[in-house]
Structures are given as structure tokens and as C-alpha cells.
């Protein structure tokens, strides 16, 4: 077990290093284009040369990489071209906003999808099961930008209940959180619910559930004590990996609703060739994804005694 955790962490660090190397090569391989991106397409050759020398770009590539990595590790992400301030100044507050949005989404999605998944999987093939399954297929089929349009059409233009943007221009407002949260929950809950349902349905057909029932346990005990724990092993991983999906989803949703979050920032940076911002955002995104994946793997073995005590 200890060895396993150590390995997982080792792999996590390795992944981060490889990802950083890839990003570095992709974005900073040719110093010339870096200077163009930073100084803009109308800068003169002379200006670019001066900038490159001033920022240590004349050194061999591996030295530059290690410098960059070191700066990165110490929290110095460079200066944003677009915002003209250090990247870190913009990044953290945007990240916090996204974390709030993510928190809302998870707080609603997890109980909802687990409950629906368990209910559907408990009695496979029942009316309830079919209704939940088809509903979840439909909602998963609506891309975020499409459901954002649909929900806006209903709640903003049709009913006039909610604000159409979430820019928080007049201070933080929970009403402005509703639509982005709804869109993300709508797109994501179906997948988790379906996975939970599949897992639960599979557990319900196992022989040990038969044993539990034929042991004369009340149905409630069979579900709560025997089925749930085994049925939750697979969805646990799915939920952890959902954080990875959420990082994709927020790009669309934040862009659509003009929410000042991390996803919108990454997109803005990409569209404007703000390379230090792209690097920082990408590294953070991958870091979050890799950490959750590692936790998912460790949690999976913890939940599963067959692996834990092998």
C-alpha cells in the first residue's frame, strides 16, 4: 500500500515534469516567436532582440527550461501580456471564482446523480430506471453552449427570472451563479448517474446480494449494508475524474456567461497569444487534474479491500 502510494505520487510528479516540458517546447521553443507574441506583431526586430537579451532568452534551451521551471515552482509565472500585470495577480482570484462555481456544481451534482443512479440501478429495467436512464442520455447530449442558449432563452428571455450574464459587475450575486451552475450540472450529472446506475445494477445481480437476501436480511439492509459500498467503488473514481471534465466545461460556461473565472481566462489568454498566462493556466489545470486522478486511484484501492489487502 505504502509502495503503491509512493508510486502514484512519483508518477504524478513525473507527469507534471513531462507536461511542463511539452508546454515549454510547444510555446517557447523559438525565442523569436515568443518575443513577437510578447511585444506584438508590430514591434521592430531591434526591440525583440533587446527584450530577448533582457529576459535571458539567448541562453541554450535547457538552461532556459530549468530557469523557467524554477521560476514556476517558486510562484513566478511571468508577466501577462494582455493584462500587463504579473500572471499570478490575475490567476489566483480567477481560480478562486472557478472553485466557487465548481463547488456549487459538485454540491448539487453529486447527491443528485448518486441518488438517481442508485434508484435506477436498484431495480434494473423498472419504469423509474428507464425514465432516469433516458433523461440522463438526453441531458448529456446537450452541449454546454447549447443548453446555455436553451436555458437562457427560457429563464432570461422567456420568464425574465434570472440575469443573462454572470459578470458580477455589481458585486457578488448568487442569482448570477444559478445559470452557469445549472448548465454544468445538466451536462455532467447524466454521466455520473449512468455510471452509478451501471455499477449498482451490476452489484444487484451478484451472488453475494443473493446471499444477503436469502439470509433473510431486510431489503433496506441489503441495499445499505451490502450493495451500496460495493456499488460506490466505481462511481467514486468517476466523480473524481469529473473534476477534470469540469475544468473543460468551465471554459465554455464562463465564456458564455462572462463569468470571471479560470476557464475564461485560459481562453482569453489563448486567443490573445498571452503565452505566460497560457503556460500558467495549463500547468494549474493539469496539476489539478493529476492530483485528483492520484487521489482517485488511492481512494479506489482504499475502498476496495480486495486490492487493499492483497
Amino acid at each position, binding site marked *: 500500500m505504502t509502495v503503491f502510494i509512493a508510486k502514484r505520487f512519483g508518477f504524478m510528479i513525473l507527469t507534471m515534469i513531462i507536461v511542463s516540458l511539452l508546454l515549454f517546447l510547444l510555446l517557447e521553443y523559438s525565442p523569436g516567436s515568443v518575443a513577437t507574441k510578447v511585444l506584438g506583431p508590430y514591434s521592430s526586430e531591434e526591440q525583440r532582440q533587446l527584450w530577448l537579451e533582457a529576459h535571458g532568452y539567448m541562453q541554450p534551451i535547457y538552461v532556459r527550461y530549468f530557469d523557467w521551471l524554477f521560476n514556476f515552482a517558486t510562484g513566478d509565472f511571468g508577466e501577462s501580456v494582455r493584462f500587463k500585470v504579473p500572471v499570478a495577480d490575475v490567476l489566483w482570484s480567477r481560480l478562486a471564482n472557478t472553485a466557487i462555481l465548481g463547488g456549487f456544481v459538485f454540491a448539487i451534482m453529486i447527491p443528485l446523480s448518486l441518488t438517481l443512479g442508485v434508484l435506477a440501478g436498484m431495480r434494473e429495467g423498472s419504469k423509474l430506471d428507464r425514465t432516469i436512464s433516458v433523461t440522463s442520455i438526453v441531458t448529456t447530449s446537450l452541449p454546454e453552449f447549447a443548453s446555455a442558449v436553451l436555458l437562457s432563452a427560457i429563464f432570461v428571455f422567456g420568464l425574465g427570472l434570472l440575469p443573462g450574464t454572470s459578470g458580477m459587475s455589481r458585486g457578488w450575486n448568487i442569482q448570477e451563479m444559478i445559470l452557469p451552475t445549472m448548465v454544468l450540472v445538466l451536462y455532467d450529472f447524466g454521466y455520473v448517474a449512468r455510471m452509478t446506475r451501471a455499477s449498482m445494477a451490476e452489484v444487484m445481480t451478484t451472488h453475494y446480494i443473493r446471499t444477503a437476501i436469502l439470509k*433473510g436480511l431486510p431489503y433496506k439492509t441489503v441495499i445499505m449494508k451490502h450493495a451500496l*459500498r460495493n456499488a460506490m467503488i466505481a462511481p467514486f473514481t468517476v466523480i473524481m475524474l469529473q473534476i477534470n471534465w469540469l475544468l473543460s466545461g468551465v471554459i465554455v460556461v464562463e465564456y458564455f456567461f462572462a463569468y470571471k473565472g479560470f476557464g475564461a481566462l485560459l481562453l482569453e489568454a489563448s486567443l490573445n497569444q498571452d503565452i505566460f498566462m497560457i503556460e500558467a493556466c495549463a500547468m494549474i489545470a493539469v496539476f489539478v487534474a493529476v492530483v485528483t486522478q492520484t487521489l482517485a486511484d488511492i481512494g479506489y484501492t482504499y475502498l476496495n479491500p*480486495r486490492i487493499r489487502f492483497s
Partner: protein
Amino acid sequence: MNDASASTGTGTRPILDIRDLCISYFTRAGEIPAVVDFSLKLAPGESVGLVGESGCGKSTVAMAIMRYLGTNGGIVGGSIEFDGRDLTTMAEEDLRRIRGSEIAMIYQEPMAALNPSMRIGRQLMEVPLFHENVSEAEAEKRAIAMLEDVNLPDAERVMEAYPHQISGGQQQRVVIAMALLSNPKLLLLDEPTTALDVTVEAGIVELIADISKKFGTSMLYISHNLGLILETCDRVCVMYSGEVVEEGTVNEVFDRMRHPYTHGLFNAIPLPTADKNSRPLVAIRGQLPLPHQRPPGCFFGPRCDFFVEGRCDAQPIPMTGMTSPTHRVRCIRWEEIDWDNYAPDRKEREPHPPGEIVLQVEAMRKYYPVHDDSLLAIFRGDTTRQVKANESLSFSARKQETVAIVGESGCGKSTFAKVLTGLETATDGKIIFGNTDIGQIAVGDRTEGQLSSLQMVFQNPNDTLNPSQTVGSQIARVIRKFGVESDPDKIHDRVMRLLDLVKLPRDFALRRPRQLSGGQKQRIGIARAFAGNPSMVIADEPVSALDVSVQAAVTDLLMDIQEEFGTTLLFISHDLSVVRYLADRIVVMYLGQIMERGSTDEVFSPPYHPYTEALLSAVPIADTRVEKKRIVLEGQLPSVLNPPKGCPFHTRCPRKIGAICENERPPVHDVSDQHKIACHIPLDELKAVEPVFRLASDAPSAA
């Protein structure tokens, strides 16, 4: 127990009274009647065996008693009275109180029957906690006591363990303990030992046979194995295609069977007391009818030698009582058929003289490295360990001879097949086949001739054929690959002739594997193996997944073809009865090593290796005339990862003589020039051992 007083419940009230039970499954294709008209009475303390082949409905009956038939199954007629109450109409809540307390069940696969993420102790304690409302402490006390009752050493440790941490035999003991915890009146056993190794099975069977004595529990024992029924039951019901065809006391059914199906069943099972020359098997022709395609009248009619048109297929056949009040049969011709002078058409086989040596294995070893990732191993700097799958194997096989390799799981018999076919290469030693040492030549480096002369027949019928190709093209591929023929018409001809050879219709060539039954798939597997004219065929448990009646036909087919082609057959099996039936010579393996080898007669009679002796005594025999010595091995099968030092069998050997067994490799006794025994016990002592099987001098006697 065979002679136990067989009451049918005429005096006392039966604990279980099933009348005219009909069970159906409802699918999109319509209603499928799984059980039709099933009746059974079970007296308190009595054990009844329910025997039949797969698909006959025996497990469905057990599940119906528990009223657990899934969402698409239902009882469509009849009643199940348990202790005076009708279970078929009982409310769900009342049913729950009976399940696990008054009626308990023991399952086929213990590993699957236990919750993998719950400690065993908790799973056991639930029974008294929910049924008797006892305190936690009391429940725990009872659970521990019961684990000790089922002979599980170290009960406290088992309580704390998760199911995967104990062995299969121990798991089954836990399941039995769970069933007995509430002191049930009725115990349902659904193939409780089918998933276990034969020496482990012997221990469980002994335990089960003790239950009714010790606890006075009535038992319904479901099995496909007649031998097990004989060892555990007082009465027996033979089922065929959803109905009982014959019932009676064990002695009545085993010695004076009256239904043609029961007869067929007994003629189709090999016995460890007889070989192919003295008692050739007789297969039942045809196949079990599908539940919705049963013939009119007698369901066995189309497969029966005594079928009379117009009588047997006129109307449903009722159960008829016979001279004995306990013996009943579902055959309208039982009085007309002269069973006492009936001799089925047994095909005589002439023993053939051994030819030249085809395969010579010399001190072959196969070690696998395994990586140990535990902290302790890393700490010691020793993360690679060796699994000694095969240790110094030496034996030979001659032309047209059948050599059987026998052993339980983990004995290395399948590894040996892999090395022989080149899927793995030997670590050391030689395998001389056709004058070359092929032990080190991997399959990719073998010549076409070496490949074609060594082919395999596999165990699992559902796995042996590629599901997405037609049967014909799979056979044709072998012919083309080995260059037997290259002209498309000639290939086609040869495929047709091979289908004739395995006695399948020619139009099967265009079928896909899923359109074939298990036995038919095995026949195709045999045709495929023989398509390239091999000089040697390795058959890895080719019939163990098949039903008894089909087994006999496939076994015979394999032997016929072998005889016709003069092929050497290496038969890998765990089933000593089958081995006795077809092998000329036997190699007994245990944990990767050869314990004993010799001709079939030599291995089956003293002197035995103590392991062979235990193995023989563990075989259930469906013959009341045979008396056998009872040897139940202690302990578990050791792991191949960590085999015992010295003699690998010393941890379980009932004849262990001392420290020498633990420390030194046993010497090999040469009993004759081909009979070898690896044991520390002096040969003279081994020779003095009594034979395991003895035919009772006074043949079948009345109960």
C-alpha cells in the same frame, strides 16, 4: 448413509412437501417452462439428492423453495409447503423471516457468494443479529463457535478477514457456517463442491455428511455428480428436462434403476474402478431438448432406445409407483423392459502395443519470475521471486499411447502444456520431440512441421472457437496454414471429411460457433486439432466442462480418432475417473513436481504415493458395490509462490514420517521400469498399503 432408513414421510409430517410444482421464466420469446410437475417430500433429518444435467431445472427448484426466481421467473402452479406453511403464497415479510433462519442455502461458488468488501465476521454475525435479535457480543460468540464447528482453525483470524484472504475450501466452510448459524430445519445445497479441488471437496463432503447427524437438519443436495449423492444422501431424485424421472432410496436408484435415462446416465460415467477395455462407456445419443421444444409424451423419447411410437409420445407420462413404496419412475414401459438382462452396445476396444517413443521429457523445469512489490521485499532488495511451475519433469510418451497428467489446480499441468506447445520456453532441461529438443524453441521459431505435428484441444467449449468466424473457415485455415492441401476444392473436401470424422453434419461448416452446443463445439475443436495430421495432440481437460452424457460421446470420439490416426494423446485432467478410463499411462503431479508415474493399472493399485492414495480416495464413485478407504487431507493446498521445502506434499501428507520430509527432496523409487514413486517412505512399506477401492464381495444387496 446409504443404508439409512428411508422414510418418505409417511409417519411424521414432512418438513418440505412440494406438490405439482411448475416454474416458468418469461422472456420476450414467450413463456419458458423450466420445471414441470415437480413433487417431493422431505422428512425431518432426511437428505435427498436432486441429480441431473445442466438445464434440467434442479437449481430452479431450490431457488423456488427460497422463492427467489428473479424478475422474470415465477411459480405458475403447485405448492411448496414448508413445515405446514405454503411458501408460494406467503407474504414477503414472513418469507424474509424464514430465509436464512429456517431454510438456509449453500452455494456453488463460495467466493462469489460472500460480500467482497465486508469482513467475514460481520457477514456471519448478521444471521443471529437479524433473526434472533441477540447482542453483538452474543452474535460474535456464536459466529466463532460455528466457525470452529465447521473445522476452521483460527476462527478469530477468519472473523477479521475479508473473503479473498482465505482459500476456496475455507470460504465454503464459512458459507456452511453462515447457513448453520440459525440452526435451520432445511438446508439447500446447490452444487456446493463443484468449484473446489477434489481433495478439498472430500473434506467439505465429509463435513456435509456430518451435518444432518450433528444438527438433525434436512438437506436437499443438488448435484450433477452421482458419486457425491451416494456419499451424502438417503434418497435421490433424478431430473430430466424439468421433471423428475425416477426417485427412490439411494440403493434402489443406484442398483435397480428403472428409467432409461437413469440407466443411460450410469452407463455414461467413467468409474475409477474400470478402464476403457473392461467397461466402455455408452453415451446417450442426441441432446437435451430446449424447454420450449420438448417432445410430446415422454421428454426422453427421442433419445431412448426403448421408445415405442404411439405409446411413449401419446400423452404426458405420469410417475408410477413400483414394488417398493419408495421407488417411483416416469416410464410407462418399466415393467416390459428386461433391465436385468439388458446389455447396452458397448464398443469393444483392443489394447494396442506401445510404439516407439515420440516425446521424451528430461528434467524439464519452468520457473516464472514474479515481482513482489511489498515494502518488505523492496527493503530486502529482493523483489523478484521464482514461481516453480514445473520442477524436474521427466517422462516419455509413445506412439498411439495416451498419457494422462493428473493433478489439482496449481500443480503445473497447464504450464507444461504451454511449454510443450512453445507458448513458453523451458527454463532448463530437455523436451525431445521428433528427435529435436523443442524445450527452448518458442512457437514463433518452430518449423511448420514441428507446429503441425503438435496440436491442442482446449477445455472451455465457449472459448475454443473464434466467435466471429464460421466453423468451416476455422478448420480450413489450419489445413491451409500447414499446407496439407492448397487447392480450394481439396481444402473444402478435407473440411467435409473432418466434419464426418467428428460426426457432425456437413452443413455445420457454415455455422458460427454460437449456433453450436457445448459438445458440438468441442467436436469442432477436435477436428481443428487433427486437421493438420498431428503426431501428438495435447488435450487440456477437453470434457470437464461438458455434461455427463455428452462427456462420454466426446471422450469416445477423441479415442476413436486417436486410434485411427495413430496419434499420441497427452491428456491433462483433474478427473481420475476419466483418466482411468482412457489413459495407458499416468503422471501424477503436485505443486509442479511429479509424485508418481506409471501405467494406469500400476498407479491405481498399491504401492501408491500417499498423494495418489489421497487423490483416489477423494474421488466420489457412483457405484454402491465399491468400498473405498476414507482419507481426508488436512490443511490447504499451499501456494505455488511459496511451496513447502523438501517434499512438496509434506504439509498435508497423512503418512509423513518426520523431519526428513520437510527438509530433503524425496528419492525416486523404481517400482518397475516405468512405475516411479517419489517418496521418503521405504518402498516395502508403500507396498503393504491396502488398496483404496474394494469391490464388496456380496454384490448389490437390498436396503
